[in-house]
């Protein structure tokens, strides 16, 4: 029967190496993060403590090219001052996960380019083009944003700028605040379609168009009742005759009414402030 090799605890292994338990644990964590095969395992017989055999520990040091204490040719490892005072805070003595100086140092967030274009984290104010875009934000709000080419901006320097909104019911001119990058167009109810022109005002108060966009509420035609059919990996609708409905439609619609948007945003925004709330 093979002799079972004695297991070293983390403390014993650290003592063998002449370093603190904390430093050893940090080293283990970093090695694991790098994908190294680390010989420390959890021992169920010791309440889940990290343990290692002396032989495995020596092999690991060899693989890492580190000196093995007590072996010929190894350099002495200085023993740091220990914190064994009864007054030391308990975590200092017990917790092995303290980040090392190496871990605490935050490397630069962006890798440095070696050639080609630079990395510009400060995003551009303009993409050098004249354009306007409308986004549906809510049934009563369109968010309109624009971009102006610097040459265009220079050409109309000093002018007031505005939006011309055309709907089937008429036109509306909105003068935008100087320097604004977007505008929230609010209406009691949005029209089905807006043709939006963006530009500076001329001397007569007319907008000189430099960019246009159309926002339109999608309008789709559909049969009243149907059946979904799957063909060649796609879904399509097959119309069917409208069945006889005996349901109490009014009561069902009334029962369906509830608070709007009581989804994640409401729950997550409740409670006291905490960075944890950003999680969803």
């Amino acid at each position, binding site marked *: 029967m093979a002799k079972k090799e004695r297991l070293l605890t983390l403390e014993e292994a650290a003592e063998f190496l002449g370093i603190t338990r904390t430093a050893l644990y940090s080293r283990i964590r970093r090695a694991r993060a790098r994908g190294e095969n680390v010989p420390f395992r959890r021992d169920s017989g010791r309440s*889940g403590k990290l343990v290692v055999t002396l032989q495995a520990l020596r092999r690991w040091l060899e693989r890492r090219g580190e000196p093995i204490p007590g072996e010929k040719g190894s350099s002495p490892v200085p023993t740091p001052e220990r914190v064994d005072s009864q007054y030391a805070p308990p975590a200092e003595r017990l917790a092995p996960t303290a980040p090392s100086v190496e871990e605490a140092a935050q490397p630069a967030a962006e890798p440095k380019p070696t050639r080609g274009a630079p990395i510009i984290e400060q995003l551009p104010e303009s993409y050098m083009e004249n354009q306007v875009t409308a986004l549906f934000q809510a049934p009563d709000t369109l*968010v309109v944003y624009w971009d102006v080419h610097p040459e265009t901006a220079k050409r109309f320097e000093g002018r007031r700028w505005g939006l011309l909104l055309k709907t089937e019911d008429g036109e509306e001119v909105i003068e935008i605040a100087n320097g604004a990058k977007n505008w929230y167009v609010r209406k009691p109810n949005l029209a089905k379609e807006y043709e939006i022109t963006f530009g500076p005002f001329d001397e007569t108060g007319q907008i000189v168009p430099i960019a246009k966009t159309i926002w339109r509420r*999608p309008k789709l035609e*559909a049969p009243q009742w*149907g059946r979904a059919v799957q063909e060649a990996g796609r879904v399509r609708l097959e119309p069917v005759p409208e069945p006889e409905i005996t349901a109490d439609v009014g009561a*069902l619609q009334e029962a369906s009414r509830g608070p709007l*948007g009581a989804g994640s945003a409401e729950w997550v925004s409740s*409670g006291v402030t905490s960075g944890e709330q950003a999680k969803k």
Partner: protein
Amino acid sequence: MAQGYVALVLHAHLPFVRHPEFPRFMEEDWLFEAITETYLPLLEVMEGLERDGVPFRLTMSLTPPLIAMLTDELLQKRYEAYLDARIELATNEMRRLRGSKEFYPLAEMYYGIFVRSRHRFTEQYGRNLVQAFRRFQDSGQLQILTCGATHGLLPLLQDRTIQRAQIHVAVEQYRRHFDRDPVGIWLPECAYVPGLDELLAEYGIRFFFLETIGILRADPPPVYGVYAPLYTPSGVAAFGRDPESSAQVWSKDSGYPGDYDYREFYRDIGFDLPLEYVGPYLHDRNVRHMLGIKYYRITGKTDEKATYHPGWARQKAELHAGNFLFNRTKQIEWLAQHMDRPPIVVAPYDAELFGHWWFEGPQFLDFFIRKVHREQDVVELITPAEYLDRHPVNQVAVPEISSWGANGTFEVWCNGTNDWIWPHLHQAGRRMKELAHRYPQAEGLLRRALNQAARELLLAQSSDWPFIMTMGTTVEYAVRRFRSHIARFTKLYEDIRNGEIDEPWLQEIERRDNIFPEIDYSIYRWTD
């Protein structure tokens, strides 16, 4: 025979957070906490039900970023290190609290949770939770939904090709992990605009979910309210959220999770104990954050919190599950009287509510499902696909533009705090299409650069960044992430256009932003 159905839908999502350039990274804890507190407990619930012969039907999204993280080797290893640290901390707590009849059992409870999580994650599931969930889908008890590739808010991306890329990449990833096509999708933030369903139909997706208002304001109005799905003109079904069952769980005022006996989320030893004691477990010794060990119950609207009693909380979870079932039973009985077909009550929640925010949430689900099985015959659990199989003929209508955010609109993701992102996203989208058309058959280094540009664009599109900006928490991180992805995309765009690809730099960002290794940039050439 049951009079109606309940479809429980859990939306499991986290943004893609992975930082190999740092030895540890605080925001990676989001994933680790969710695994410990939500995903493993949910699997445990399903295993328990299966073991006890309790049939169940659950619907759950696993979003592509979450799948990417759950199957990432680096994050799997880091999760084990995270658990090792928590085991150490809980061990310390057991030593510190030895002799305390009040707190020692709680420290022991956390020690047990962390040790058991370590064992289950590593030994039982071989680190791959996606395959653990897949087993329940393969046995027909769980229906796993896909989502947008990076949870992009599809309506505001506007361009059809850009929207399609979000769907296409998600479907491809789903096929690789589940060996089948997705039958349903959780639209990111339930954000819908008419016509989006046509994209889903292209991929054979049969259904999606909408905020209540999206159904109620459909054109024509829904005959059954939200208690039956509508077919969109493309044939993809839209299921509407039931406001009543949602409010019972979601409401911050009257929802179950606010019960005084439940565990208080915000009282955590990361904030309660001396910095010199918890410091070694913090990412920065001087910056406190939660460490997942919490000893108090909600107690009431007071700062004087009382000790948590797991037994009391468990009783409450059972009580609330019974109440939830009672209400669903009454609701379905009433609805059945007013309908000429069995009603379906769709109850969607963020998965992370169960366990992470609401510690006892998994117990609640467990009790509820068991009670549905044993204590009544009015309600039957169902998945949306099963419903459509049983009731294939439905009303056709065009749902309203909507989301499940505040007021049912898109204002959470486009307001004064975050509207600045949209011009950059739209510009990057146009540039990506331009690149895909300009270099249709790229190979080698150019192909790698184009594929990485697609990844950076997708990562920038995540709805999580504008959401965080609105909520005002960890804003700096969200802003940095957004800027970083756009900046990386822009450099790739310039370098590709100038024929000057920076290979060492490209290699580094491929290593960092390694989501969707199989991506093919040519999806951005596709047009209708």
